[in-house]
């Protein structure tokens, strides 16, 4: 589904603090599979996620989505691809405080201009599926960590994306909640969604749900199985 060829990514390029986060990545992420990026902090996992998810462009190299080169596309087109193709679950959840769970969930669909009724139906279905129906009107800051993550998952799925990208999804959860998350992930994988996540939590990386583990270090892939 996604191919990365000769990817390099620099921050503060040309300045005294120039830093290469990715240094020659070649990787093909298969559709309908769960791929986990492993590695210590600073290995480039999150940077790689941002490139795959069209949140940033590579400094060098090509990103292809279903065979189409998207690395040089203008921001507008990248945003459109991002909205249709990817759903994101961030490490800090990144929900908008002051809004209800339901309002947070439908936010990514606002730019599509879809009728509100349809959006709300879809959001309600997602809330019910993740056992959050009773918390729909609660402001997100009143929710527990596990509930917040489930709201973030609902939000990631509202536009029915083909791929789900999750950055350190269990970093802020206890073992019980982390297991709950893995169960949700299993369900999503079962639906045939492509899932790409980063983690150094063995509960995730060694889970049976994960089809493939990619080990990274110093901006390079050191192991792929």
């Amino acid at each position, binding site marked *: 589904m996604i191919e990365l060829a000769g990817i390099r990514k620099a921050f503060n390029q040309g300045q005294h603090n120039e830093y290469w986060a990715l240094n020659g990545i070649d990787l093909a992420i298969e559709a309908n599979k769960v791929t986990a990026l492993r590695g210590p902090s600073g290995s480039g996992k*999150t940077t790689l996620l941002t490139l795959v998810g069209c*949140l940033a462009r590579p400094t060098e190299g090509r990103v292809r989505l279903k065979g189409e080169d998207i690395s040089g596309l203008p921001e507008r087109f990248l945003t459109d691809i991002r909205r249709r193709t990817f759903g994101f679950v*961030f490490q800090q959840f990144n929900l908008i405080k002051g*809004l209800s769970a339901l309002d947070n969930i439908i936010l990514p669909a*606002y730019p*599509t201009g879809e009728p509100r009724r349809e959006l709300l139906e879809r959001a309600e279905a997602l809330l019910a599926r993740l056992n959050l129906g009773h918390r729909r009107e609660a402001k997100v800051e009143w929710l527990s960590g596990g509930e917040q993550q489930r709201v973030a998952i609902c*939000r990631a799925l509202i536009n029915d994306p083909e791929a789900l990208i999750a950055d350190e999804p269990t970093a802020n959860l206890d073992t019980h909640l982390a297991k709950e998350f893995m169960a949700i992930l299993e369900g999503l994988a079962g639906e045939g969604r492509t899932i790409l996540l980063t983690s150094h939590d063995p509960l995730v990386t060694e889970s049976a749900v994960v089809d493939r583990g990619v080990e990274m270090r110093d901006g390079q892939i050191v192991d792929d199985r």
Partner: protein
Amino acid sequence: MKLWFEKQRYLIDFTLASMARRKARNLGLLGVYTVLVFVLASVALYTHALRVEAAKVLAASPEVILQRLVAGRHDLIPPGYLEKVGRIRGVQKKEGRLWGYYYDAVVKANYTFMVPNDASIAKGEIVVGPALERSRGLAAGNGISFRSYSGKLHTFIVASVLPQASEIASADLVLMHEEDFRAFFDYPVGHYTDIALSVANPLEVRNVALKLAAALPDSRPILRDEVLRTYASIFDWREGIVLALLSAAILAFGILAWEKASGLSADEKREIGILKAIGWETGDIIKMKFWEGLLISLTAFLAGFVAAYLHVFYFAATLFEPVLKGWAVLYPEFRLTPHIDGLQVATLFFFTVFPYAAAVLAPIWKAAITDPDAVMRG
């Protein structure tokens, strides 16, 4: 098209929710901004209405007034002048007027004594303006004495009080019989204060004035248009004075509004990052902020303008009246006819709503074009 409307509705919905989440800041901003519009609109509406009112009052006044000058000062019109004027072509009607000022030490105010041209007032009687009615407690049938400049006391009976509707022009007026006037001021018979001339053709007014100046070289013709222009410039000048006095406050308010509107909090920046990451385009974020700016500035503009309208036309511009109306002791009490100038409203709208929209959009542009990957890094 439906999609576009739906999208704008979502953006406005989100904007309103965002504004509600920052209630104190937005209400403060709205308040400051409304006050700013209120002040500017009050001054503009009031001076414009005064100008219109003055023009209306002067519409009934004669086209030309002729004054005689001695050593550059206004002097009495001697006998024979009226006849000389009558021979100038284009003059439809002419009349000698009698009027003068009288200082009333009791209320420390000046009155205008005048002889009406229809000679409708009986000897020994006067008709007074509404300001005298208030300041001296006069009513029809009352007697009042004025000490003339020669020291003699003259007593008059108030025949009636002029109607309130004419107060802008008649507040301090005392109308009396010609003989009473001449006796009170020791005015020689056959002399007048000035001469009022009616000219039928407005295009002829200037020619008549030139002919008058040639025929009576010691006289000064004053055209109605010139008086109107003088009034207009007096009100313009007063408007300028008020704005100059208020400029420091206006500037302070303006800077405060700009500061509040253009500053993006860390929370707002974080939100913009999140929205971009979950699929909002830079354009969507700018549109959202545009709606926010428009909602605040439009609400403030409407509220400020309506408040100014009520202040000027229903509460007699209480806040700016002393400076804008003039410096008389006897203020006329009048309610201005509501009058709004479209260009004035448009100018005010442009100078208040436009800078605000710019203040909101400039920083958001900078924040909105940054890459959304920052949000991944917490």
